[in-house]
């Protein structure tokens, strides 16, 4: 069977950055497998600007940002296969994939980097009663239709969900000549960026109804309109608040979910909170040599952080390959016997999860970025990080919201001073 040092599943920003980093860390035998007709992932349909402020210090559109990494991959001559769907990965890291030219084929990988991104939650998850008429799309599907196929799904639009994709599609459909009547959001706040609320809704006088949901879809063949109602604090519609909006198109922008069928199939342990793999400081899953990065690991709002995370995953995979090449040559028995210090990261008091979940101090980088999300909107609160019971970080944040990923940095040097440390707690504190 064909073998390969690093097989990367997915050629979006995560897969591309991981490939570049593995190559720059000395690995030549790399292969990116991408099911789409081109590299770049979801960025190809995100034609708006606002990407790359952190990485390139300029505002790029999605395709331009992807373009920078695609150029790098090409310049470094990293091999990739397009129109190639990965069907299965075994827990022995045998990757089964398929394309037109080669049919079904298998590769024995030394390391696998999971970079499959995420997909949108579907209407099924929403539980809207009534018929299933034509004209109901996920916002991402509509985005692909308008931006890549040049096809407008409708003329009069209502959008359910105020995540960034929904907001961006409100502007996009408006510019293409549609009338967007309203954006309804179940939560009392929008999960989207302020900038998108101002530039995608306010600029075009599109109303945003917070604490509202769709209670009825009218129309049998095609959507004719929807009824919105205000919800109470338990998200139950309040009788008497119903309002009808006519529309031929309903876009759903109700969140993203990591695409982990392959990971589950191979036995990767998953977090019920992120719906992504549970990883250690090296972004390595419970299966040795299998790494994850980008939206497949946890949903990101900024692609810059995807690239940063993927760079670390690529480097760690490269180091894993190099370490295992040396096995047998170096009899490093002393270190093998040493009980490895593993620290658990515990999210609590408003912090929903952390990536990574555990840290092996010996294997961590000099500085490790721990990313997390909070579960509600907090103003004038603090992020607290505790080494066992001792508070080590206390950082004031004017504002934290579920839509914005937070991070803290941990230094290896600092952790090294606590050889008996077992638990690092990350929490939101009032003071």
């Amino acid at each position, binding site marked *: 069977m064909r073998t390969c040092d690093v097989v990367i599943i997915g050629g979006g920003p995560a897969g591309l950055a991981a490939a570049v980093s593995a190559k720059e860390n000395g690995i030549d035998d790399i292969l990116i497998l991408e099911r789409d007709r081109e590299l770049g992932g979801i960025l190809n349909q995100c034609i708006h600007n606002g990407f790359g402020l952190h990485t390139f210090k300029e505002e790029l559109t999605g395709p331009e940002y992807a373009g920078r990494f695609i150029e790098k991959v090409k310049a470094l001559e990293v091999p990739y296969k397009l129109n190639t769907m990965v069907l299965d990965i075994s827990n022995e890291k045998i990757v089964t994939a398929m394309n037109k030219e080669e049919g079904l084929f298998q590769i024995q990988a030394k390391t696998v980097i999971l970079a499959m991104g995420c997909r949108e939650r579907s209407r099924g998850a929403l539980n809207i009663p009534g018929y299933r008429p034509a004209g109901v799309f996920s916002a991402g599907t509509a985005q692909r239709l308008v931006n890549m196929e040049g096809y407008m799904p409708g003329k009069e639009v209502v959008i359910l969900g105020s995540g960034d994709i929904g907001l961006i599609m409100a502007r996009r459909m408006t510019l293409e000549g549609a009338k967007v009547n309203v954006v309804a959001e179940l939560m009392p706040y929008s999960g989207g960026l*302020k900038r998108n*609320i101002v530039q995608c809704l306010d600029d075009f006088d599109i109303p945003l109804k917070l604490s509202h949901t769709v209670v009825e879809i009218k129309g049998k063949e095609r959507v004719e309109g929807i009824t919105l109602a205000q919800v109470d604090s338990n998200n139950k519609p309040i009788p008497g608040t119903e309002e009808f909006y006519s529309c031929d198109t309903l876009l759903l922008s109700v969140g993203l979910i990591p695409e982990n069928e392959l990971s589950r199939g191979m036995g990767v342990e998953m977090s019920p909170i992120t719906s992504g793999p549970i990883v250690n400081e090296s972004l390595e899953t419970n299966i040795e040599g299998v790494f994850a990065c980008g939206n497949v690991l946890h949903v990101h709002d900024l692609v810059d952080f995807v690239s940063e995370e993927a760079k670390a995953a690529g480097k760690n995979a490269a180091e894993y390959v190099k370490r295992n090449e040396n096995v047998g040559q170096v009899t490093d028995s002393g270190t093998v016997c040493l009980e490895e210090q593993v620290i658990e990261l515990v999210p609590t008091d408003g912090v929903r999860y952390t990536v990574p979940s555990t840290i092996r101090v010996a294997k961590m980088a000099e500085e490790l970025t721990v990313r997390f999300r909070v579960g509600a909107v907090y103003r004038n609160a603090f992020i607290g990080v505790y080494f066992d019971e001792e508070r080590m970080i206390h950082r004031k944040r*004017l504002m934290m*919201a579920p*839509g914005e990923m937070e991070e803290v940095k941990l230094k290896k040097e600092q952790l090294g001073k606590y050889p008996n440390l077992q638990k690092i707690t990350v929490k939101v504190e009032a003071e």
Partner: protein
Amino acid sequence: MEQKNLTCIGCPLGCQLTVELENGEVISVTGNTCKRGDDYARKEVTSPTRIVTSTVKVTGGNVPTVSVKTKSDIPKGKIFDCAKALKEVMVQAPIAIGDVVLENVAGTGVDIVATKGVEASV
């Protein structure tokens, strides 16, 4: 005296800004937490601008459309004129990132450039 209310987009805090104007001149900005809010409000009430992104049709390429943007920001009031002008544009593949697909869009003096490459169909 005229008053305008805005949301600052500078950071997630999203301060609610109030701008007081007299004869089109900004007299005061309140509600901001930092200097960036002040700068944003002054620009936004006197000469708001935006980068516009869209797509235009492609002939002779392997895809039907190509994504484009205004090379720099244009006055907010010109967004619709810009979108309308782009509907009429048809570009011939191959196209490289940065190629100008329309000059001086809607009289703004700003060019429209491609944000993606498109290969010619074979």
